[in-house]
């Protein structure tokens, strides 16, 4: 029974061929497949083919047995939470007023040069009310208005320390940066830096408006809130958000 290709023989190693063992190994009874093997095999193949026929878009919703890869319910919940958070934080967090203010800031100087009579804002309306009250009480009208903002320069008309408009007016300046206008609305006069860059009077006017309305920390007497308190609240909120927005450098003509 020696094999001519037997390398072990060529190497001097004799193959171990126990005759009785080999005879018994070869005469071991042949185990056969089960009687219903072909039937079960056909069924398995049919199942395999039906899995392959499942549409791709159905697979995430089917269990693995049916050819899918069911995504756990927790994943759907996590995705839904993320979508809701995204919309609530990034989409709905921006108010209409803030959008309008941003658009207004992006407009050119010609919009700011509009005469006060041509454009009335809620602050103009409230200005008129305070003017009438000041006329009655005899106190100085410190209420700024949008119309006045357009006619004043920052340097001439503001106190360097507090940036409070002093009432002096000069020639019409270049357009101040809108974002600078609202940046200090949350600061008290004491916290403003001494060497702060001069702001356009329009910013001071707006700040004064908010101080008068009583929405900022101040040691001055609170004025009576006007009927547009809700609008003012929204303005304040939007101004705070704008302040946190990245600043655009003021035009060089304002300095």
């Amino acid at each position: 029974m020696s094999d001519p290709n037997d390398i072990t023989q060529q190497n001097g190693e004799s193959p171990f061929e126990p005759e009785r063992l080999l005879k018994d190994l070869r005469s071991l009874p042949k185990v056969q497949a089960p009687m219903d093997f072909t039937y079960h095999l056909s069924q398995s193949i049919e199942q395999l083919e039906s899995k392959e026929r499942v549409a791709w878009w159905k697979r995430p919703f089917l269990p693995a047995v049916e050819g899918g890869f069911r995504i756990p319910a927790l994943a759907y919940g996590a995705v839904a939470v993320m979508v809701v958070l995204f919309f609530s934080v990034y989409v709905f967090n921006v108010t209409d007023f803030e959008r309008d203010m941003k658009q207004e800031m992006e407009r050119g100087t010609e919009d700011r040069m509009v005469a006060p009579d041509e454009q009335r804002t809620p602050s103009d309306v409230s200005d008129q009310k305070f003017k009438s009250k000041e006329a009655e009480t005899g106190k100085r009208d410190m209420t700024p208005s949008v119309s006045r903002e357009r006619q004043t320069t920052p340097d001439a008309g503001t106190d360097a320390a507090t940036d409070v408009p002093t009432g002096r007016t000069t020639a019409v300046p270049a357009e101040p940066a809108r974002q600078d206008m609202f940046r200090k609305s949350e600061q008290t006069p004491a916290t403003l830096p001494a060497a702060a860059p001069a702001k356009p009077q329009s910013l001071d006017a707006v700040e004064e408006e908010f101080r008068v309305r009583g929405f900022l920390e101040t040691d001055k007497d609170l004025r009576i809130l006007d009927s547009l308190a809700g609008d003012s609240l929204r303005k304040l909120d939007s101004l705070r958000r704008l302040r946190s927005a990245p600043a655009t450098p003021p035009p060089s003509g304002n300095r």
Partner: protein
Amino acid sequence: MDQSQEQSLRQRVEELFEAKKLDRVTLESLSDEELMLLFQRDVRLAFDILVQRYQNPLMNYIFRFTGNREDAADLLQDAFIRVYSKKHLYKTIARFSTWVYTIAGNLARSELRRGHRKYLTPIDRKRNDDEEYAIPLPDRDPLPDRSANENIVFERIQDALVKIPEAFREAVVLRDIQELSYEEIAEITGMPIGTVKSRINRGRLQLQELLKDLYE
């Protein structure tokens, strides 16, 4: 198989396919490789004939390798399902028997590694003299048409087979039970012929050692 043989094989299959001579009688006369070529052209009958030819030899091989009948039947089904789904991977350069034995051997080895404890976990019990020993649980294949003595010998051989290392067991089963050539075994196991022969030798030695009381 060289390229000219392969080419003639393909030509013959092509002729049969075009002539639509795909009845069972015609297909049963074809070789395994020709049937596989037809099956690659979605002739399902060719696959059925191949299953018919190889289900029993493969069942015997897997059973002798794993030692468990139920698992052998499952693995056999898995092997043919793999042949069905991966038919496009078969190249006629290699023999079909080599390919299908390789698939079956890989599945059996994976199953053994996955469920190694299932085959070797002993049940310990104490004898009356408080001495512990392990009782292995082999799968017994009742053979009523043989004498009781022969059955005992066959059972002892099967028990000894599952005790020797997998690499030696596979070589001994393929050579001495399935009666394949050294070249085929080398292709199936992916080992050089010298290694195959060495493993067969060592497997036989270990079997002889385990069954020495039977052959003394």
